[in-house]
């Protein structure tokens, strides 16, 4: 027995104790003193799946769904489950070759790895889906997964309804990181304005995943889960049939047509041409179509109804008349001896009529659209002796116009509306090189809706509502009500339910103007445009502009005694107001009021919708683009950078739609640049 080593037993025990203490110490460090591991474990294993509710549906005034959801199917693949696959059949159904098949498989592997499904073919067509479903047993690892997408059953009202798109980093930041990369949100139109309503409330499902990202079940039996609440529907004042008619009539034209119900301010139709089929911006081809349209110089996605700023021309005259009447400068009986032009300011302002008493009083002058008469009214408004100087008179005149909704945004429920232009006096001070260095003569064409005055079609339609309602109006809006409206929705709907009465012009004065506008349709400039069974009031406009032929304008409301619809139509560079814009407005009113188009008008509808009034410069641009494409095809091996794309972006600035775009910068009175053809721009650049 060796007992001398007894103390060594102690040493060994001390070593044991030391090691256990070391382990306990590290455990305390890991489990008691650091919190990061719990979060890391949750990050590892808990997958937050966001459940997207279906978006709200948008209905027209008769309850037809004009923006709906349809279920489409994605073909997805989970690579690790793919075994003994019938590749030939699959390729035949999808109409791809084996090389493409392998390419897509590799893409899926790289994107989501082996264990998670990735989209193999997005949004398959219904026929392909049926074929796939029949043969699904042959494709282990492949799956059809449902995806709801937006659908526009009438293919109409693209600009009003807008579209949804993937959010970008700016939106994510703005939403305070509510949206995440890959989310869809309304990017334009009603989809954008009413995004919070349409979107509904997202649900979150907490799922457990394993180390290969395979879902293993719900986390803690789903006690943290929240369910999704579907988006609410919108009920609009749109009449989809009138809308379709307006779009049809504007085919192959540049311009816009807006119809408003004056009794509510609800927009009945709002068309902008050139337009596009809104279904192009849903589904698989979205990205491609978007970039094509975005680069198109004709700007099909541009909503000219709220962004197109045109000189209103003669359609402004009823408002000029009202201002002069209200300021007490004229009576309805005041006449002007027009001899074919307005000579008082040197350079004559021409008039289409000469003599014959065509401007013997307000009503007749309006019916004949006498330029001299309304130029005169404008001048006396500015030189009103009640004010110390012309500038003060001008500011009063501007105030009237702003009250009529010109030069200010009308506040429609669509994003990025433009406000047109009723220039401030300071603008003219700048133009003429100093305060009060100009007089009413210098700006006299403002009185006939020219010079620096511009208005959008929605503004002119709104102005018609004001006249039709004798001074009262509701802000134009598209959405009448929201499903299950709550107090919080006042943010959206409140302002559209308030009756505005900005001016205190007596009804009698409105009646003079309404009578005059009625005379326009009886013996005046649009006597040949009839709305069967309805008396209507209108004003034509033929607006000069720096880009080519005159813009054809037409504003109207009907019926005369109980107005139910107010319309403003503009057709760019097409000529007289009564030639193109007039009939379009007439048919829209007819369709809305009579619910049908009279048989004798049908031929005319076809004639107008087939007429091609696209400016030659635009056509030339398409031509150049096509030939460049062909040339590029020929020199495909040449590695020169694309020339076309550069010019594309330049040309997308559409001078017709944005005549005032460069207004802030230039100092000359005339903001009139010659229109450049695309190749000229390129030459200049080079």
């Amino acid at each position, binding site marked *: 027995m060796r007992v001398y080593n007894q103390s060594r037993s102690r040493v*060994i025990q001390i070593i044991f104790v030391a090691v256990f203490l070391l382990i*306990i110490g590290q*455990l305390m460090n890991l489990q008691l003193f650091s919190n*990061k591991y*719990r979060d890391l474990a949750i990050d*590892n*294993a*808990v997958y937050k799946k966001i459940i997207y509710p279906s978006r709200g549906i948008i209905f027209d005034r008769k309850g037809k769904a004009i923006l709906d959801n349809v279920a489409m199917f994605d073909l997805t693949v989970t690579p690790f489950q793919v075994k003994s696959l019938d590749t030939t059949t699959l390729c035949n159904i999808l109409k791809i070759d084996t090389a493409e098949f392998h390419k897509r498989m590799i893409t899926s592997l790289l994107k989501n790895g082996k264990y998670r499904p990735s989209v193999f073919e997005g949004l398959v067509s219904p026929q392909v889906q049926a074929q796939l479903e029949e043969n699904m047993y042959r494709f282990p690892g492949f799956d059809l997964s449902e995806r709801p997408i937006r659908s526009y059953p009438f293919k109409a009202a693209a600009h009003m309804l807008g579209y949804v798109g993937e959010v970008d980093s700016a939106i994510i930041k703005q939403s305070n990181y509510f949206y995440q990369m890959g989310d869809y949100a309304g990017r334009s139109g009603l989809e954008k304005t009413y995004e919070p309503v349409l979107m509904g409330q997202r649900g979150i499902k907490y799922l*457990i995943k394993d180390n290969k990202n395979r879902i*293993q079940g719900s986390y803690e039996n789903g006690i943290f889960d929240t369910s999704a609440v579907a988006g609410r529907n919108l009920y609009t004042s749109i009449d989809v049939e009138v809308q379709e008619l307006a779009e049809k009539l504007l085919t192959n034209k540049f311009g816009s047509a807006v119809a408003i119900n004056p009794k509510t301010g609800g927009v009945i139709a709002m068309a902008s041409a050139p337009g596009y089929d809104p279904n192009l911006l849903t589904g698989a081809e979205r990205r491609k179509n978007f970039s094509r349209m975005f680069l198109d110089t004709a700007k099909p996605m541009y909503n000219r109804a709220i962004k197109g700023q045109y000189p209103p021309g003669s359609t402004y005259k009823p408002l000029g008349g009202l201002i002069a009447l209200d300021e007490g400068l004229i009576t309805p009986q005041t006449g002007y001896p027009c001899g074919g032009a307005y000579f008082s300011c040197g350079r004559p302002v021409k008039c289409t009529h000469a003599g014959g008493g065509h401007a013997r009083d307000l009503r007749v002058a309006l019916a004949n659209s006498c330029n001299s008469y309304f130029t005169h009214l404008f001048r006396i408004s500015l030189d009103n002796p009640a004010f110390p100087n012309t500038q003060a008179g001008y500011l009063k005149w501007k105030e009237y116009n702003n009250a009529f909704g010109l030069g200010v945004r009308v506040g429609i429920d669509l994003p990025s509306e433009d406000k047109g232009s009723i220039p401030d006096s300071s603008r003219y001070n700048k133009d003429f090189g100093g305060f009060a260095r100009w007089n009413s003569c210098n700006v006299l064409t403002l009185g006939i809706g020219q010079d620096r005055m511009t208005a959008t079609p929605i503004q002119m339609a709104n102005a018609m509502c004001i006249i039709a309602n004798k001074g009262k109006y509701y802000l134009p809006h598209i959405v009448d009500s929201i499903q299950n409206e709550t107090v919080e929705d006042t943010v959206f709907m409140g302002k559209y339910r308030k009756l505005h009465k900005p001016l205190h012009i007596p009804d009698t004065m409105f009646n003079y103007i309404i009578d005059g506008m009625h005379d326009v349709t009886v013996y005046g400039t649009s006597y040949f445009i009839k709305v069967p069974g309805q008396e209507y009031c209108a004003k034509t406009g033929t607006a000069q502009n720096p880009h080519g032929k005159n813009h054809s304008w037409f504003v109207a409301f009907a019926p005369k005694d109980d107005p139910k619809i107010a319309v403003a139509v503009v057709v760019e560079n097409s000529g007289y107001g009564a030639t193109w814009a007039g009939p379009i407005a007439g048919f829209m009113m007819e369709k809305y009021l009579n619910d049908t188009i009279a048989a004798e008008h049908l031929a005319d509808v076809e004639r107008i919708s087939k007429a091609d009034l696209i400016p030659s410069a635009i056509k030339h641009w398409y031509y150049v683009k096509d030939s460049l494409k062909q040339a590029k095809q020929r020199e495909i091996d040449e590695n020169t950078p694309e020339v076309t794309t550069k010019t594309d972006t330049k040309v997308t600035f559409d001078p017709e739609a944005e005549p005032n775009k460069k207004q802030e910068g230039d100092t000359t009175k005339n903001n009139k640049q010659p229109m450049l053809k695309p190749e000229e721009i390129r030459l200049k650049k080079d």
Partner: protein
Amino acid sequence: MTRNHNTISKGIDWSIIWCYIALVTIGILMIFANEYREGQSWLEPILSQKTDYSKQILWAGICAVLATFILLTDSKFFTATANLLYVFGLLLCITALLIGTEVKGSKSWLVLGGFRLQPSELTKVFTTLALAKFISRQETDFTRTKSHIIAAAIAITPAIITVLQNETGLALVYFTFFLVMYREGLPPFILIVGASVGVLLILSLIYPPKTLFIAFTIVAVLLIFLMRRLFRKPRMVLPIILLCWGFAIGVSVFAVPYVMDHVMKPYQVDRIYSMVGRPYIPKDPVKKAELEAERAKKKGGGNQNASEYNVIQSKIAIGSGGVIGKGLLKGTQTRYDFVPEQRTDFIFCTIGEGFGFLGCFIFLGIYAFLLFRIIFIAERQRSTFSRVYAYGVACIIFFHILINVCMTIGLAPVIGIPLPMISYGGSSLITFTMLIFILVRLDADRQMVLR
């Protein structure tokens, strides 16, 4: 063997058996915890033997039978056959090395029928017996260096074979016999030097040379300052301190980095660094490219090497357990395969995640109790054979706990070594059963003098 029940149970230390039963039960529960999925039947797999926990239950059953047999065996049997068994074990190991089946890169498995057996596990038992036998021989004078060398040879030979089998972890276990030998009279400086070199190597892998240089210098200066009064009497103290300092600096600042950078291939260095959970980016661009090519070859490469990932996930699992843990069947890390090898080498994570600090504390308490009980038993033996054997058992269990638990909590390199009685695996469970029950049997005969 015709003793009646009373004689069998006479002198048996029940506390060790209860510890053993508790640990095996915990082990089965833990394997169940990370294998069972909600909604499955838990009984059916046990009967059909399809799952790991059911297999472990079967192994436990086999071990119970084995334990009974061991308890029925005469203690003299073990002393008599110790050397024979040792040779038999070595032969088995060599057989496995030559004709064995390769599992995860190590050629240490023998397949017999449906069973897979790892002889290097069993050899631990035989080596312990052989070492006890050698030291307890009357001719052996364990104060002589010759005896030390023979004892070391007995311990190291199976280790060498195991290294050849590519089971480094198991081989390291055999070094724990030096602790046993220390108890029996091995001069302490061998242990100290051995342990110091080991620690030094690990430190130089974990920390950058600059840090170590500063640390060693500070320690040396402190020592010189504190021991300055001793310099005159045994004049050797100062030179020894300086020598140690020089050696430490030489190894960790010059030798290790030199070997890493110039002698070893990048992928080898990568593997070593990955064991200590450290990323490896070679300075030499040529080597860097070489290493990247090497990594790219492996599937799912990425910049993180496998062991680094294992250690991080294991620490997350244990750390996320917190004070009281997430509860049985609630651990997300261990149940959804984030922690690798979670039924074998990393099973401690399941305890750490499911039962938190308290659970770990109690669990380690059982181990500590077992170890101290074994040492207590060792010291009450009359025969050297039993005492050496008991120390051998304690040290083997201790070393397994040390390496395994420290690995899961990031204190030791990733070395595949099972947690005694807990980890899934028949060979390992049988080995520890034999170790413990032979001890219990020997202890029951503690009044006898065995040689």
